[in-house]
């Protein structure tokens, strides 16, 4: 609220009281410029019913050197017949970093004139939307302000940055019966030789094994090839506040989001079916799907993901609805873990899921910021032991565990873990 009228009113009133007490006409006259100031302000205040504005918001996203910047343009047009003095004010949302321009502007608009407010912001990731533009219409002296919200919608999504991973040859427990790239250990159409069986009516003649047929008179044999199918993959991203660690502007969660986006892109690029579950104070999901549309869906979900304080059941990873992923799917959990989270992995194994844990190391993440004194060194050592025990507990369930130091590339670790998991199965 503008306190100018209050100040003027108090000054006028005080001068009047002093003038009356002292019965001094000069002090009463001293009051007149202040009274005139207040009067001019009130008389020039535009009437709200006569105020009419048009507003438009334009958002343009550009990306250079991997940094996304959004240029916002707000246009306000005076559609009233009178000249108006106004202040345009833009609301900053969490995660926005203004790099250029200003978020407020005063302007005097004659009838039909318009003004623009331009600014540029960057953000690592996020979903930004606006419904209106806030303006304050006032008299030229700025004494009495009328606040108005002009409808002007705008929405922009900044998706997490993807690090392109090379394709990893997966060998999941089960495959989906759709043509893909994973040898399914089933005879059918494919490229690799799988075996020979007796001819069934309807088999194409080109698949007959003529040599074997020649050796066995009155019998025909058909060559079979190994079917190549796709995998069912579920990604679970832990967005609980207690598992996040923020140092300055860097956050462990942002690394997890980046890793999830990169994994989703890699698996979808290989043709697999991928679903996502973000588990925090609230849950958001991208149900399993294929292709570019699914990648957009997952990236959209990840761009909205934020660390939230967990309440009640949300504190336990064990309570996530894992049944949204088809049984025996490959579940990749990206979490820096709690002690109680082992139950989730027990449950995954019990339901027959194939699981993989990618656990960013919070100790390594925080290490550079910690003082290197004896007590800290001991504390770090004890925490490392505790974490190692926690991860070993999960590894005992025959679940590959990636202890990821976020400063290191994730791809070789995932590749090794997924290749090893095939060995475990065999």
């Amino acid at each position, binding site marked *: 609220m503008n306190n100018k009228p209050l100040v003027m009113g108090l000054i006028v009133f005080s001068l009047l009281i002093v003038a009356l007490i002292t019965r001094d006409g000069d002090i009463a*006259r001293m009051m*007149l410029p202040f009274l005139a100031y207040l009067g*001019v302000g009130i008389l020039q*205040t535009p009437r709200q019913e006569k105020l009419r504005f048009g507003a438009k918001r334009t958002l343009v996203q550009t990306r250079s050197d991997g940094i996304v910047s959004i240029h916002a343009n707000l246009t306000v047009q005076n559609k009233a017949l009178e000249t108006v003095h106004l202040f345009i004010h833009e609301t900053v949302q969490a995660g926005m970093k203004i790099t250029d321009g200003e978020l407020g502007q005063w302007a005097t608009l004659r009838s039909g004139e318009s003004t623009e407010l331009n600014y540029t912001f960057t953000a690592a990731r996020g979903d930004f939307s606006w419904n209106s533009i806030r303006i304050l219409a006032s008299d030229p002296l700025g004494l009495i302000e009328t606040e108005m919200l002009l409808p002007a919608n705008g929405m922009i999504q900044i998706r997490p940055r993807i690090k392109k991973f090379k394709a990893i040859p997966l060998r999941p427990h089960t495959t989906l019966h759709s043509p893909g790239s994973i040898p399914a250990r089933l005879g059918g159409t494919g490229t690799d030789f799988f075996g020979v069986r007796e001819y069934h009516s309807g088999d194409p003649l080109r698949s007959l094994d003529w040599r074997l047929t020649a050796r066995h008179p009155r019998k025909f044999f058909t060559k079979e090839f190994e079917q190549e199918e796709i995998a069912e993959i579920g990604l679970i991203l832990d967005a609980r506040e207690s598992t996040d660690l923020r140092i300055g502007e860097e956050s462990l969660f942002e690394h997890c989001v980046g890793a999830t986006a990169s994994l989703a892109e890699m698996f979808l690029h290989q043709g697999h079916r991928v679903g996502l579950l973000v588990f925090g104070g609230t849950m958001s999901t991208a149900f399993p799907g294929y292709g570019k549309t699914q990648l957009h869906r997952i990236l959209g979900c990840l761009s909205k993901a934020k660390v939230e304080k967990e309440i009640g059941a949300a504190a336990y990873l064990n309570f996530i609805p894992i049944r949204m992923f088809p049984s025996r799917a490959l579940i990749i959990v990206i979490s820096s873990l709690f002690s109680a989270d082992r139950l989730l992995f027990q449950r995954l194994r019990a339901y027959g899921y194939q699981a993989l844990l990618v656990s960013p190391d919070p100790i390594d993440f925080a290490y550079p910021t910690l003082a290197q004194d004896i007590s800290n060194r001991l504390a770090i050592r004890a925490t490392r032991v505790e974490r190692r025990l926690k991860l070993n507990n999960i590894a005992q369930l025959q679940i590959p565990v990636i202890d990821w130091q976020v400063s290191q590339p994730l791809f070789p670790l995932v590749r090794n873990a997924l290749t090893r998991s095939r060995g475990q199965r065999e």
Partner: protein
Amino acid sequence: MALRKKFFAVSMVLSAVCLAVGFAVTGQWFGVVTAMITCPGWVLARKYPASSLPLICLLATIALAVTGSLTGSPASLMIIGSAAALAAWDLLFLDAALVSNSPGEQTRQFETKHLQSLALALGSGLLAAFLGSLLHLRISFVMLILFIALAVFGLERVWGYVKKMEKR
């Protein structure tokens, strides 16, 4: 240098000079020194417009003008001094508001319109004050009480109107 900055400097100096001259005429040297001290006060207030310094400077100047008027300094100088302080206070906020505005036609238009309104307010106020000095009315005590009641009622109505406009 923007017009508002020039006017601010002029108003600030005018306010201090009027008060100082007014005090000097009656030989109140402490008042002269105090009036001159308001100048650096205003400069400091311009640097920190979001603080209470601008209000303190305005109230201090008015208090000085009232004191001078009561102690026999020329009333016209005191009135001009307080009106110039009002102008300095207003221009200080105008400058702070336009700092983030990109220089252009609309900013210039806004500034001009503001300065015109300020000139109108101060001009009419000072004119009324000087015309008032020509009038010599003798008011009875009862009429005085009635005028007080009317003034309080008027102020209350003005305040009510201001609040109503803000609520809209």
